[in-house]
């Protein structure tokens, strides 16, 4: 490496040159952005090594359990840097998403010492944490001996960070004082609108501003374009149906899944008048403009349809829309993004979020070494690498969102994405009440929605039955 | 050659006793025929001797040696099965060779051994065929050849002629005694055919319900059947059985058939007044003029030629059916009323209640009535 380049990158890492300056400088030296990325990684590894004993656990070996996911691929692509930096060997098992969480549950419930760390969603830690399968990471984060000074825990988006922290008490607020940090957010997904610009232009419609407009716009799109349906949302009999668009809009009306009484008892909260009104609209929207076989839809069908031009928009994970705008998708390059505020009276959107995070197995044989990996994988350098070089959307660090190169990359290929993020990031958090019956409640909720859409049960009655059944199960579990 | 002794053999299947405290001796070089209806236990007995099933009680001695707990392959036995039991995936040659391969004979010894027995049984031209390609007769001969190939001292033949056609059976019945004699083996032969039993057996053991009812030479069994059952098993056409009550006068014991007196010389006086069954072989009855002594009036019902005999079904006055047999070619009435004469000397009397033979006074105890 030429010294000039080295100096320039070091300067950037010290913060004395901004990113644009760095790129300009490297550009004049005839170095492409790709090479720049590699250079930067090597340099940042050096920088990390400077102020912290990264080699403390050299010679040890870790094993990870990973989901087949772009985030895991980004990490694997960069993994050599970690090995060089720490001298720790890392092996990993990758399982398909369809069966990934089954694998995690099986491995953890048997107390397997095979894996030291694994990918998870925040909802899952509501089981894993109380079950004693994962470690509260606060102790490590707060220990300067064990955490490198550049880690910058405060750089994490607060809503996201807090969504991964829970005190373990059913109904306890996420991110409370006594909360345990069950996992470290890695990347997250806000649920907003991704739409097909061409179709919107052709039908002459605007991005909907609230749920009523969404119903009308979807219907108009479906009618005017022909051969497509208006809006893609999930509908399978699973928690996955509740947590994206549906709950984001629901929360925008200040509705909750469960009530927590003063003495800590939980009870169903989805049979309020407002909730019933929202459900009515949601069901109407699916009946009028949703996919015909909605009740089998999970993320990949929602995404596939948008990418193949079978639907005009989706109210789902932003990153799903992001991926559909590239690759061999027919509609690649034709998609745009927008935040969505379902409640006409709400000021901003309040997306519920899905957080891909990293957790430490309680059965890990060497937690300190594992923490080295976790802090590296969730550290600023890898985050930047993932965000700029790979498809690490949405990054969880505020600094990345301020990064010019990242914003530029998004703006060029993903119109509206940055604005969408900026508009809703503040309100983005997990809107569910953390409690161990999360999957029971959401599965039954999805099942009830299916019945309502199929007109097997009226909305009022369905929600009352749902609330009743959930109350019963909560009581049975000693929570209600 | 060897001897076979069975001592108090009991074999049960669940609650069903198939062999009930059965004992039997077969002498050196003897051919013993086990005869009886199906279900009598003959085949089970044979398999016990072969060693493929084990008795619940009792002992099996071969050549004086206790073989009860010895495995089948070490008993030195040759056996032919009723269904032939050829190995379907082996050629006739390999089938026949199987006792020889077991003793690890040399290839030449096997070849000549198989050739010899195949020639004896006239199947040397089909040795390369698989059982599927053999005719029924060839299969039967192959099965026999296989049993003989190892020159076993004890040969067990389980109704080997059962599944072949009449012509073949007739041929084999003539051929077998010579064949068995040439082997010089001790033979136990199972059959349901009384003619086979008579033709082949040095002695015949009659079995029924897991017991031996009678054992003796063919003549003894024919001439002094131990009970009604045995009497009706031997003889073709079957013996005539009529309910009678013997009476006695100064001339001796007699019975009345259609009010005609038939004398039973030699019968003990004690039978008089006892409920009995008289057994008369069809050949002991002949047609006669009405004037003949002891002529019994009858009505001729039907006539059937049967090989070398002619069998006539007649009805007595009391409408009892009686079979009459005469050598083919001799004249006799074809229909209508006629008369018959019954030879009381060759008739048997059985106790009606027990079915047991009532022996003539002074005759020696013949055979065993078990």
């Amino acid at each position, binding site marked *: 490496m030429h010294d000039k380049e080295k100096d320039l990158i070091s300067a950037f890492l010290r913060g004395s040159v901004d990113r644009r300056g760095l790129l300009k400088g490297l550009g004049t030296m005839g170095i492409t952005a790709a090479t720049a990325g590699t250079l930067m990684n090597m340099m940042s590894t050096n920088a990390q090594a400077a102020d912290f004993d990264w080699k403390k656990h050299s010679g040890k070996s870790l094993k990870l359990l990973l989901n087949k996911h772009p985030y895991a691929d980004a990490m694997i692509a960069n993994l050599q840097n970690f090995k060089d930096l720490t001298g720790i060997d890392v092996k990993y098992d990758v399982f398909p998403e369809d069966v990934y969480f089954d694998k995690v549950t099986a491995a953890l419930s048997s107390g397997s010492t095979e894996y030291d760390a694994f990918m998870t969603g925040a909802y899952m830690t509501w089981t894993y944490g109380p079950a004693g399968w994962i470690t509260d990471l606060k102790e490590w984060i707060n220990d300067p001996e064990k955490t490198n000074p550049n880690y910058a825990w405060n750089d994490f988006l607060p809503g996201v960070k807090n969504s991964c922290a829970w005190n373990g008490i059913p109904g306890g607020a996420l991110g409370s004082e006594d909360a345990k940090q069950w996992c470290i957010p890695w990347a997250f997904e806000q649920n907003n609108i991704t739409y097909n610009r061409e179709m919107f232009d052709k039908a002459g419609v605007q991005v909907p501003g609230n749920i009523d407009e969404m119903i009308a716009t979807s219907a108009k799109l479906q009618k005017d374009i022909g051969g497509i349906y208006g809006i893609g949302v999930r509908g399978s009999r699973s928690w996955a149906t509740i947590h994206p668009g549906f709950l984001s809009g629901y929360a925008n009306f200040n509705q909750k899944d469960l009530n927590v009484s003063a003495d800590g008892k939980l009870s169903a909260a989805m049979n309020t008048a407002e909730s019933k009104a929202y459900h009515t609209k949601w069901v109407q929207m699916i009946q009028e403009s949703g996919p015909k076989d909605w009740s089998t839809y999970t993320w990949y*069908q929602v995404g596939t349809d948008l990418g193949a031009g079978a639907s005009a928009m989706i109210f789902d994970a932003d990153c799903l829309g992001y991926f559909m705008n590239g690759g061999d998708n027919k509609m690649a390059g034709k998609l745009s993004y927008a935040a969505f505020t379902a409640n006409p009276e709400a000021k901003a959107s309040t997306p519920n979020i899905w957080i891909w995070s990293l957790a430490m197995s309680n059965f890990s044989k060497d937690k300190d070494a594992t923490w080295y990996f976790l802090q590296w994988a969730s550290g600023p350098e890898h985050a930047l690498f993932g965000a700029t070089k790979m498809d690490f959307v949405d990054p969880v660090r505020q600094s990345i969102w301020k990064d010019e190169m990242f914003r530029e990359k998004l703006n060029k290929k993903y119109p509206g994405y940055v604005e969408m993020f900026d508009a809703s990031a503040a309100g983005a958090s997990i809107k569910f009440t953390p409690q161990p019956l999360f999957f029971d409640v959401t599965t039954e909720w999805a099942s009830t929605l*299916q019945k309502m859409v199929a007109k097997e049960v009226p909305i009022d009655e369905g929600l009352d039955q749902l609330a009743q059944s959930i109350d019963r199960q909560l009581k049975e579990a000693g929570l209600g | 050659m060897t001897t076979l002794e069975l001592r108090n053999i009991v074999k049960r299947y669940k609650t069903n006793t198939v062999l009930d405290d059965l004992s039997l001796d077969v002498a050196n070089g003897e051919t013993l025929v086990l005869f009886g209806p199906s279900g009598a236990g003959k085949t089970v007995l044979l398999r016990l001797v072969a060693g493929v099933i084990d008795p619940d009680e009792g002992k099996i001695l071969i050549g004086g040696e206790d073989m009860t707990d010895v495995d089948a392959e070490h008993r030195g036995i040759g056996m032919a099965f009723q269904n032939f039991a050829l190995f379907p995936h082996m050629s006739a040659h390999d089938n026949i060779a199987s006792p020889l391969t077991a003793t690890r004979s040399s290839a030449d010894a096997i070849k000549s051994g198989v050739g010899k027995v195949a020639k004896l049984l006239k199947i040397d031209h089909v040795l390369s065929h698989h059982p599927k390609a053999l005719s029924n007769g060839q299969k039967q001969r192959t099965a026999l050849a296989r049993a003989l190939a190892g020159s076993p001292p004890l040969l067990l033949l389980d109704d080997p002629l059962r599944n072949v056609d009449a012509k073949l059976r007739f041929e084999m019945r003539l051929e077998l005694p010579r064949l068995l004699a040439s082997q010089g083996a001790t033979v136990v032969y199972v059959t349901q055919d009384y003619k086979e039993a008579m033709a082949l057996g040095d002695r015949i053991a009659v079995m029924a319900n897991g017991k031996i009812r009678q054992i003796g030479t063919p003549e003894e069994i024919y001439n002094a059947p131990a009970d009604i059952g045995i009497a009706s098993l031997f003889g073709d056409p079957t013996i005539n059985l009529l309910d009678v009550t013997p009476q006695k006068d100064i001339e001796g014991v007699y019975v009345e058939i259609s009010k005609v007196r038939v004398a039973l010389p030699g019968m003990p006086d004690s039978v008089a007044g006892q409920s009995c069954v008289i057994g008369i072989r069809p050949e002991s009855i002949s047609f006669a003029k009405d004037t003949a002594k002891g002529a019994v009036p009858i009505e001729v019902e039907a006539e059937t030629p049967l090989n070398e005999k002619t069998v006539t079904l007649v009805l007595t006055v009391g409408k009892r059916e009686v079979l009459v047999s005469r050598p083919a070619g001799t004249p006799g009435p074809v229909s209508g009323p006629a008369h018959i004469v019954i030879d009381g000397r060759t008739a048997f009397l059985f106790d009606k209640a027990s079915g047991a033979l009532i022996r003539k006074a002074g005759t020696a105890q013949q055979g065993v009535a078990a």
Partner: protein
Amino acid sequence: MLPYVLSLPALLVCIGILIPFVTAVIYSFQRYRLSQPWSRQFNWGENYYNFLFNDPGFWNTLKISLLYAGITVTLELLLGLGIALLLQKRSRVNNFISIMLLLPLMIAPALAALMWKLMTNPGFGILSYLANQVGLQNFRWASSPDTALLTVVLVDIWVYTPFIMILLLAGLRSLPTQPFEAAALDGVPRTFVFFRITLPMLTPYILTATLFRLLDSIQQFDIIYAMTQGGPGNALTVFQVEAYLNFFQSTNVGRSAALMVILWAITYLLSNIFIKNWLRLRERARGEA
């Protein structure tokens, strides 16, 4: 001695599996949620009690499972028998067709279901397109409560009929020829031959095929879960789907184990009946031979 020696290794291998089975039965008598480890305790069969008196979902599960098994096995049996009769004559073409018909069985049911889901997609699905062409404009396949069962049954039939077909075909071809020749000579009507000769002789085969199918069908998971995850509503929440969700998602081990112990009891009962009949029929067939 010998028979014990022969069957012992197989038995030992299986007993290794019996131990976890017993453990699972113990779980089914516990209040046992992985997410609430502190509340784990023996609960005197409360899981079972709840099924009977507190849990409308359970009765639905029982009903759907039996219905599903009943429908699929009956239809597959009829269809499999029909196809076997069509292919009964020995010929190269028939042999080739019968092997090719095994193809659906060779595809993992979960993947087969994924493909069916695509083929019944209202937009891209060839089957939806064809249904449209013949006038079934609004046929919603697995996504409508009215047709979900039908659709999943259809996929089950597609996958598993070949299993029954191949067993029955082998059975048909092994029947002795004499009775049929005799019947043909006597000019006995063919329906009579079929019902009075073919069917009775084929019964042991039918029983075995049905038994294995029934056991698998009442435990169906792959196809149903991949097609509908038990939905829409609670239209297809069969035992295994419920137990799976209870175990892997809700981590309610006690309830999951209790559900499966009941499922096991049902299959135990059914197979007991079948095997008794099978043994009886075998014995009878042996007696006749």
